[in-house]
């Protein structure tokens, strides 16, 4: 059953096509040589046919199919436009319109199409005056799929020449796969690449003798193209000939096949490099904008303020749009998981149902690239350690089929991915026992272990509670890798578990890595950006509220004792002479947290929130502890972005 939203789209779009067809028919009625109009009608009818077939409207499909055949004759100059043809086409369009109306009203139309179909067939069968007699050169051994044939038609309709290029490399050509790739790269710059024989994959792997064929749609005539191609070495021979798509192309003339649904280009591929460049430029633009806004504010000119307000709005909208272009649905990686879970479970003799919620939620492709492995690991863990054998589940009164749920949700600038299983949960006593045995903790500590500490333990390199090492997990590469990876993305891993009823791992990751929300703080004369995601709160305290405890300082916030760091000290901004007397000032403290650990950063002043564009640091200072990157502020100053995770 086709959804109503598609119906709506079908009716609105098909109406547009009918309008265009009518307009173009009028054009060819006055000028029978108007091939642009003929092509346009052909395109519309073709699309309409595809849409109708998709919707299951048989009569519409059939009539448009025959009309398309007739138009193809006109287009291929095998027939001349006659008043009779125009009449038949107008009549057909009227019938198409009535059929669409009937479909809209969800009625089976009584309109008879047989009359028109016969008329069209008759016209096609007539031996018309052939305008161009030259027979199309046969392209032997070339087969096009239906989709390719349709695509080629579109390209031809757009006025491009379809050519077949056979390239033979010299006999002792070195690294012929790279040579083929170079030729392919060059050709792609010269025209629309349709296909290659053998397929591109085989070319890249070198699975060909010495020659291969490219099918290309190009603007130039063949000679001009020939000249362009000669700039590549180690090519023995280039042979180019036009490709004619004959009647025997599948899909073009067989009434029974399902037509493809070709629309005007609505999406296109952009290389990630280019997107990154755009993103970078957007960052620069955002910086320039902030600078401008600051200047405008100081000038207090009303008109300028209005313009600057509009500019501000536009840039932030543009920024959002650009971030959107970098996003891909989570399904991109999640879709492979059910199959993987099924296979793994089967190997272990377990019965597991993997459910995925929210796979339509979109994430930055960089983030997506990086969370695949951690997620696989968590799922493997759940199957291996979490879910019990069917018998064990039966004994504890659970359904024999274990459940794993992957839930993706989004809140503001953050994505949450939860991996939930209904297995046995983490055995705290077992974790403690192993941790003590491995010398990770001492016995005394075990009484205060909460979930957070347990996670820390099981996420330590080399920790494994599994009784035996399986080929699925427990091979030493463990949660520590997951945790590190997520933290590298500026996210965090949380964990909840309940003995006997399962565990839940929660990945919190930023929507995008390129622009983050940050709190700007001043430390002496330097400005630092603290990622907002990690900030719990900011408070003000007096100097005497800071207490020394062993080697570090702490302060009390409500009932909690929080260690503090004086950023001026840790960032080397102290000046004992000039700083005299400043110690009595009230101090601003930004409290950051990571997991359940918190840390107060003592700063000179909290300046406010701002979107900052993250610029990576060069290799020399990349590894400086506590610094994640740099950003340029509105006034052109550089601020370092604090890496809160390594500080806590």
């Amino acid at each position, binding site marked *: 059953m086709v959804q109503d939203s598609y119906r709506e789209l079908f009716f609105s779009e098909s109406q547009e096509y009918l309008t265009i067809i009518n307009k173009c028919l009028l054009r060819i009625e006055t000028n029978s040589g108007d091939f642009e109009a003929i092509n346009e009608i052909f395109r519309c009818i073709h699309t309409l046919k595809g849409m109708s077939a998709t919707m299951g409207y048989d009569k519409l499909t059939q009539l448009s199919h025959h009309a398309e055949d007739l138009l193809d004759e006109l287009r291929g100059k095998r027939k001349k436009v006659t008043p009779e043809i125009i009449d038949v086409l107008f009549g057909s369009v009227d019938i198409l319109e009535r059929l669409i109306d009937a479909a809209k009203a969800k009625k089976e139309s009584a309109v008879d199409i047989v009359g028109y179909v016969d008329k069209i067939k008759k016209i096609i069968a007539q031996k018309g005056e052939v305008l161009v007699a030259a027979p199309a050169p046969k392209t032997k051994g070339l087969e096009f799929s239906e989709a390719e044939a349709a695509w080629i038609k579109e390209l031809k309709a757009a006025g491009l020449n379809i050519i077949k290029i056979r390239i033979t490399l010299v006999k002792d050509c*070195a*690294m012929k*796969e*790279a040579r083929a*790739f*170079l030729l392919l*790269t060059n050709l792609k710059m010269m025209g629309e690449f349709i296909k290659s024989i053998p397929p591109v994959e085989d070319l*890249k792997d070198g699975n060909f003798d010495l020659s291969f064929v490219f099918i290309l749609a190009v603007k130039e005539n063949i000679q001009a193209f*020939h*000249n*362009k*191609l*000669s*700039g*590549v*070495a*180690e*090519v023995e*021979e*280039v042979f180019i000939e036009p490709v004619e798509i004959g009647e025997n192309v599948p899909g073009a003339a067989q009434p029974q096949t399902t037509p493809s649904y070709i629309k005007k280009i609505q999406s296109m591929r952009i290389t990630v490099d280019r997107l990154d460049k755009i993103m970078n430029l957007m960052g620069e633009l955002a910086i320039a904008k902030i600078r401008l806004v600051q200047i405008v504010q100081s000038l207090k000119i009303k008109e300028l303020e209005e313009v600057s307000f509009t500019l501000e709005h536009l840039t932030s909208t543009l920024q959002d749009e650009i971030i959107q272009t970098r996003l891909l649905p989570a399904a991109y990686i999640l879709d492979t998981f059910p199959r993987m879970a099924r296979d793994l479970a089967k190997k272990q003799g377990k019965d597991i149902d993997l459910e995925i919620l929210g796979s339509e939620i979109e994430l930055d492709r960089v983030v997506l690239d990086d969370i695949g492995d951690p997620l696989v690991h968590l799922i493997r863990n759940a199957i291996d350690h979490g879910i019990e054998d069917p018998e064990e589940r039966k004994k504890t009164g659970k359904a024999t089929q274990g459940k794993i749920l992957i839930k993706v949700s989004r809140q503001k600038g953050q994505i949450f991915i939860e991996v939930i299983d209904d297995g046995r949960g983490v055995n705290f006593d077992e974790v403690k026992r192993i941790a003590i045995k491995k010398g990770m903790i001492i016995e005394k500590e075990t009484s205060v272990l909460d979930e957070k500490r347990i996670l820390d333990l099981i996420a330590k390199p080399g920790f494994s509670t599994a009784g035996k090492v399986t080929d699925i997990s427990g091979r030493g590469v463990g949660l520590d890798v997951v945790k590190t990876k997520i933290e590298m993305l500026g996210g965090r891993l949380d964990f909840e578990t309940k003995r006997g009823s399962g565990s839940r791992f929660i990945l919190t990751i930023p929507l995008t890595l390129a622009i983050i929300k940050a709190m700007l703080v001043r430390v002496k004369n330097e400005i630092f950006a603290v990622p907002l995601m990690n900030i719990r709160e900011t408070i003000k305290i007096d100097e005497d509220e800071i207490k020394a405890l062993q080697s570090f300082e702490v302060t009390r916030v409500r009932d909690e004792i929080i260690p503090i760091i004086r950023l001026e000290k840790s960032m080397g901004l102290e000046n004992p002479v000039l700083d005299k007397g400043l110690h009595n000032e009230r101090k601003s403290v930004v409290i950051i947290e990571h997991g359940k650990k918190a840390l107060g950063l003592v700063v000179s002043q909290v300046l406010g929130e701002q979107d900052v564009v993250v610029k990576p640091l*060069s*290799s020399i200072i990349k590894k400086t502890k506590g610094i994640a990157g740099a950003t340029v502020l509105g006034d052109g100053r550089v601020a370092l972005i604090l890496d809160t995770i390594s500080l806590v």
Partner: protein
Amino acid sequence: MSKIMIVDDALFMRKMLGKALTEAGHEISAEASNAKEAVEKYKKFKPDLVTMDIVMPLMEEMDGIGAVKEIIRIDPQAKILVCSVMGQQSLVVEAIRSGAKDFIIKPINTERLIEAVNKALFPGDKKIN
């Protein structure tokens, strides 16, 4: 006579390439032994063509591919031939993606080298039948 810059970390290769190219009537306008130097000298000498070894020691995070990218960024019209050895298909492919015009495989066959250089310098000059 075209100005050519040779980039290779091995002096031997630079001399060998230099000899072959001068004998074919080209002028060696610059030589560079690492990626960073290559980019700087490209800016300075603006050669008509660059031969670039793609496997060179990292110099300030930049390797041969990095140099190809950087030169193409500075001058999208730059003509770069990469030199590689057998078995480095993926590097060669990466270099082509980054904008290299052609590649030659070591050990260098002088005839092939000159063919590749001339075709890159004067595309369309010699007709391919």
